[in-house]
């Protein structure tokens, strides 16, 4: 089963710290992949403006690399900084990695006239355009994200070895949030796009466990005909898209996410102060009810981090930390490896009804229960 680790701290830290935590949990994965998401970026050699979008991915050939440059230029993006990883290719299993890229662009001047939603769509379309271009050319270009203040690295292999291969321990790139997932979902084919975390318009999630309700959920999301709801090389990608749909399309508060993916039982809803509304919400979002994964760990553009469990809660995840630094992990030992100097007595393992939030100020955890009243403004 996949292993998950997320660390969030006021002070940027190296992603290598999280990779060592993955090492502590390595019994659970098979070296079939690593996904790494960094948010709240800090570069040693560059003063980064967090408004500027970062493009991350892999070019598998020089031709792909050139096409990428051409497309970005054509869409009006000006390259501001090109982070070059010190790579040790011998540590990487795959042999067709021409270049791992992490590049910062300035938005086109024409964006000045666009509103926030239009800019967000344009950034997504650019990512999808590059992805489609790679797919049309024998998958020689893989693009993970194009978004301000977010970088993603995905590769097949053992997490620590991938970290070594990209010399992530050199502190040239650090971040305030790092999400890592070891092991791809091998229920489906091994594919770089199948690595967690999944990302769409600033929203990222990663999951352990199999989502057996994948096909009906995927079919429903595809029916929304939203261009970003695509891919689905992994059954876990739908969690990111459901979160996106909840927050961005339905414009519901974060509390609604848990009510949508794991609604309360009828008997519980009958007792709930907003039971009528929540039953209605369950019915209209019925095809988004998940089945199977154990933990969904996510992060949002405002640097909030969240953790929710599946209704069955077969393998409890843990959250622990202290003022200013917090960690989520699929195993207790993962939290201990990321923040050894915390009071483990204050660690918390969410139950089926909980949503754990670490707000952007990182002072303390917020624990929401589905049984608590739902924000009234949405119901009225």
């Amino acid at each position: 089963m996949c292993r998950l680790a997320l660390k969030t701290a006021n002070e940027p830290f190296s992603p290598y710290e999280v990779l060592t935590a993955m090492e502590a949990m390595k019994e659970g994965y098979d070296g079939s992949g690593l996904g790494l998401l960094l948010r709240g970026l800090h570069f040693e050699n560059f003063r980064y403006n967090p408004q500027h979008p970062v493009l991350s991915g892999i070019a598998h050939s020089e031709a792909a690399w050139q096409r990428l440059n051409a497309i970005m230029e054509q869409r009006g993006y000006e390259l501001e900084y090109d982070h070059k990883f010190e790579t040790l290719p011998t540590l990487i299993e795959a042999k067709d990695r021409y270049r791992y890229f992490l590049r910062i662009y300035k938005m086109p001047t024409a964006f000045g006239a666009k509103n926030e939603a239009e800019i967000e769509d344009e950034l997504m379309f650019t990512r999808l355009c590059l992805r489609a271009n790679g797919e049309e050319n024998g998958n020689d270009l893989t693009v993970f994200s194009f978004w301000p203040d977010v970088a993603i690295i995905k590769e097949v292999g053992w997490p620590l070895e991938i970290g070594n291969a990209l010399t992530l321990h050199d502190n040239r790139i650090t971040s305030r949030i790092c999400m890592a997932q070891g092991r791809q979902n091998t229920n489906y084919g091994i594919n770089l796009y199948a690595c967690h975390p999944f990302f769409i318009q600033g929203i990222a999630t990663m999951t352990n466990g199999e989502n057996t309700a994948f096909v009906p959920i995927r079919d429903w999301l595809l029916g929304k005909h939203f261009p970003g709801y695509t891919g689905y090389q992994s059954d876990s990608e739908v969690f990111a898209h459901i979160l996106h749909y909840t927050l961005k399309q339905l414009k519901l508060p974060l509390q609604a996410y848990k009510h949508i993916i794991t609604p309360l039982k009828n008997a519980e809803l009958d007792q709930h102060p907003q039971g009528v509304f929540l039953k209605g919400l369950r019915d209209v979002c019925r095809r988004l009810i998940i089945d199977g994964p154990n933990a969904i760990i996510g992060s949002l553009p405002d640097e909030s981090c969240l953790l929710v469990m599946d209704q069955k809660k077969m393998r409890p995840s843990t959250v622990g930390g202290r003022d200013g630094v917090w960690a989520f992990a699929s195993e207790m030992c993962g939290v201990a490896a990321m923040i050894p100097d915390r009071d483990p007595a204050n660690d918390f393992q969410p139950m089926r009804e909980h949503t754990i939030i670490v707000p952007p100020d990182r002072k303390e955890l917020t624990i929401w229960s589905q049984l608590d009243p739902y924000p009234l403004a949405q119901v009225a």
Partner: protein
Amino acid sequence: MVSARSVSVGPSSLSYTDLPWIIQHREDRCTLCGRCTAVCPKEAIYLAYRRQRMPKLDVLKKARGNEYRTFVGIRQKTSMANACIGCSMCAMVCPNEAIMPVPNTNEHRTLFFHNQKGQPQTRGGRRNISGPNLLDRIMFDRISMLTDPALDAGRHEFNLTTTLGRVLSPEEFLKRTAGGGWIPPTREIFPFVIGSMSFGALSPNMWLGLLQGVAYCNEVLGIPVVMCTGEGGCPPWILKSPYLKYIVLQIASGYFGWDEIIRAIPEMQCDPAAIEIKYGQGAKPGDGGLLMWFKVSKLIARLRGVPEGVDLPSPPVHQTLYSIEESVMKMIQTMSTAFGHKVPVYPKISASTSAKSVLNNLVRNPYAGGLLIDGIDGGTGAAYNVSMDATGHPIASSVRECYLDLVAQGKQNEIPIFAAGGIGKNGNVTQNGMALIMLGASGVHIGKYIMQAAAGCLGNEKNRCNVCNLGICPKGITSQNPKLYRRLDPDLVAERVSEVFMSISTEMKKIMAPLGRCQSLPVGMSDALGISDKDAAERLGIRYVC
């Protein structure tokens, strides 16, 4: 050789071996109690006195002569009207196991004489095709074991219910919630519904037993089963009772019983589960309902508002409507309004290559609460054999096609599709139903299976019994004759109904657990299905396995 004229043989003359069932009678065991002849619904057997000549030859006296002995025994009639239907009631009542019908393994000639007096064969039951059907051959092959272990059917909590009624899109729901708009009514029901069998087609005892069983499932077992009335109204005491919430009221082209229903609305203690508008039926597409005069008793006549003892054929179509658009506009909307927009209203159609166009019309109508599609294997109380056997469309591909059409529009959660027609035909009711659910149905309707499992209906697809249309049901399930229906104890039917639904509910868990599903009914989980038939796999968009 004797001349032909001396033997009574006509074109329609048949012998025992020409009949589908041959009565085997053991005279050495018979006590001549007469129970078998009294119970036989077809009067296929009779007590006969026979004389046997015993030739006598006394060689010494050179005398020849005869002695005669008489004996009694059970004999079988060979006329078409009295041909044995194999119901075995004679065997059931015989105290000495002296009699039973035996299926004729040879080709039988009655097939050619079902048209006497110019009247083609009519019967009850369903399409006479036996053997495993397509649904029986579907396997649930996506076993969850890699990253999640399979669930424990006995330990985990399973959500087995489905939604009946129109569901809004999430966007529209939030808009209407904020603006105080109408939220269409929905019901959380068990996905196996007792399909429409009318009060008239079924005997009062059968109906009472079903209703008692359904109430027990809901109120004691916590299984929210609902049942549909079929065309023919609903007894007034039920309309005014709290049990109405377990009843789907059907309106069909004859509108039988709706005077009573409309008049009872002000006195109803609760809303019915739903309203079903019947436009078509899988067993006899293009044909209306038919209750033959034998079954129009005083009670039925009162319920339906008609004289006693007359045939009650419903027209094939609703006479006031000329198109599905019109019927959707007029009937669905009217019925919804009649019940204060608090009751889901959905149409029932027969499966057909044109089912999709009906569905797409419903998608655009905000009052349509679902679509029930009834396949060619659906049962009926009375229809022409040719309609039952040859007219219609199998349910699986019709449902799948409609579901995928909704998927393409992103509307699969908004209009639930219910499937009917042959579910449990070979006893695999849960497997058949779950296969249809994973192909895209939100639930299934079962009628014939319930009669067979809950009341011991003897009918089968080798044309055993199948005399529901004649009102002579030997088990008293489909008869309005008190002598017959008193054979059926409603309490025992109710007990069987609850046993059936308890068992379906356990089997559903046994199917869902290995697939790793328990949180919601796996509607449209086609990745879990496999079939060892390439063409069927391709048509249904599921995996071919071998």
